């Protein structure tokens, strides 16, 4: 918790750096103060600001499950200033963590339902937390289908996790890449197209999607075609953020702030906002 000063990060140490893809790394960081580490609590889908002191902060979803007390996991694509610096970090380096921020996936409301997870590229990160949370509370949820697409096989994150997910009861994992590639034995095609091909039933199902804006846009259309209602579709948004607590102004869509009122929205909620989402 950041206490009474929402701008104050918690000091943390990089425990492990995992290379996911040529431009994506996963960082496991542990909060330095043992007491804070014990009490730091968050819900699946919540985000945090990672600080590299001297460079700045950027927002990432916490993609370890809340039950993991030893570290918080963040998966970072090297794109801008902060992420480039993050990619230079090694075990033992100091970072700041400010969070948890924002809302979370409606995991209570999803109980008793089948879950369809649709991820594109690094959009798998938030869904990873939700998937792990569901696996830990397996009896509360029905069938789980994960459709995870990337541009190429090299761009796929969490490769080590996939065999484990596939071995779970009532979990189906469908992987796809945009174009055929040597050695690739899974599906080929863009996420929305593959989604229409596998045509999951909307009955008693909640679809949760995260990925690049253009993928989300066409995925929403595909889900609509398949008969999913606006209340059955959940997504988590990205915006440029600074404060993370609804003060600095930039991440608004209409009167809502993605950092504070989101990042998780149902399609029904998004449709009530001005059309500035994608």
């Amino acid at each position, binding site marked *: 918790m950041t206490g009474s000063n929402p701008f*104050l990060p918690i000091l943390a140490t990089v425990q492990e750096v995992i290379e996911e893809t040529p431009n994506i790394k996963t960082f496991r960081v542990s909060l330095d103060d043992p007491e804070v580490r014990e009490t730091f609590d968050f819900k699946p889908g919540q985000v945090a600001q990672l600080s590299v002191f*001297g460079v700045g902060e950027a927002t990432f979803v916490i993609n370890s499950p809340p039950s993991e007390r030893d570290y918080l996991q963040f998966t970072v694509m090297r794109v801008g200033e902060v992420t480039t610096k993050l990619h230079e970090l090694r075990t033992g380096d*100091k970072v700041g963590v400010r969070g948890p921020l924002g809302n979370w996936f409606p995991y209570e409301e999803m109980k008793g339902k089948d879950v369809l997870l649709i991820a594109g590229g690094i959009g798998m990160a938030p869904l990873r937390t939700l998937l792990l949370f569901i696996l830990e509370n397996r009896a509360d949820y029905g069938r789980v289908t994960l459709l995870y697409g990337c541009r190429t096989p090299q761009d796929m994150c969490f490769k080590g996790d996939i065999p484990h997910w596939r071995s779970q009861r009532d979990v189906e994992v469908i992987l796809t890449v945009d174009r055929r590639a040597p050695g690739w034995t899974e599906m080929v095609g863009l996420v929305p197209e593959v989604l229409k091909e596998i045509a999951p039933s909307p009955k008693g199902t909640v679809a949760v999607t995260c990925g690049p804006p253009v993928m989300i846009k066409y995925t929403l259309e595909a889900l609509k075609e398949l008969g999913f209602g606006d209340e059955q579709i959940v997504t988590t948004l990205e915006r440029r953020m600074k404060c993370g607590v609804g*003060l600095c*102004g930039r991440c608004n*869509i*209409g009167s809502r702030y993605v950092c504070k009122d989101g990042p998780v929205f149902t399609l029904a909620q998004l449709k009530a906002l001005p*059309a*500035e989402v994608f």
Partner: protein
Amino acid sequence: MVGDEAKFLPHEAIFEALTEWAKRYSLFVPAEEEKGVFWRLFEPGIKVELGLRPLEPPKRLFFPPTEVLLRFSYKERQILPEIPKDDTPLLVFGIRPCDLHGLKVLDQVLGQQDPYWKKRFVRAVFVSQPCTGAYDTCFCTWVGINPKEAKGADVSLVELNGGWLLQPLTERGRSLLEVGILEKPSFSHLAEAQELLSRIEVQKGEDLNGLAENFYRSFDDLPFWRHMTFKCKACAICTFLCPTCFCFNITDEKGHEGVLRLRTWDSCMFFHYTLEASGHNPRPTKAERYRNRIGHKFCYHPERYTDYGCTGCGRCIKYCPVSLDVREVLRRIKRY
């Protein structure tokens, strides 16, 4: 509004009174300088000008254009917050109703969570004067402000022939007026103040009811918004001079001993404000950005906090290099 507790401050005694207050408060007054009237910390020799509204709103007194949020020391590897240490309360003397309302709007946003704002704002004392004449760019009555009223102030201040009448409105105001130099006002002083207030002409404002509905209807009409912002230079002076704009950026600055994390005013009128690292920008042109500014002031802010995010001070009109007039834009939305 004038009563038993009122005090009279003769013109010739104002410097003495302000000097007395400056001992107990960080006293800010409108001061005349070469380039106009600005809010300045009171000091000997300052040219106090209560007759003109300062060019800038008093926002920066509570929310500085740049401030240090925290420090990170390399050696101790510690994060230290930089909450202002000075406990002297601020006294803002001669503020107009529009500008005081502007601070109230900012407090709706920052007052809940921002310890830096709170430290300066919660103990501040305001001496407010009614507005005796509107500029031709003023439209405070459109957004529900009564320019005669010292709403939210601790003391109201009315200039009479020969001095000022000060009327405490709160406990803080009463304690402020406990200085020896102030006199008991005569009946004629009280009558003169009342007469003066009754003479102020308040312009009838445009009715903004139904504006939000029209705004949302116009939202997807990008050609309309392009037309509205055709001449806009995206210079953002409207946001920097706005008494209610609060957008900020957070950046790090490296020093020899550590890192300073700074907060700096930012503006929704800038392209990079919403630019994401991926290159995606949800508000790529000035049409979307100005639409957001209008939406924020007149729809989003009232939805979140009830008041309009605008005080009608008209600085955005007065200082716009291309005279983009928000009143005209509001009228166009009303007719949309």
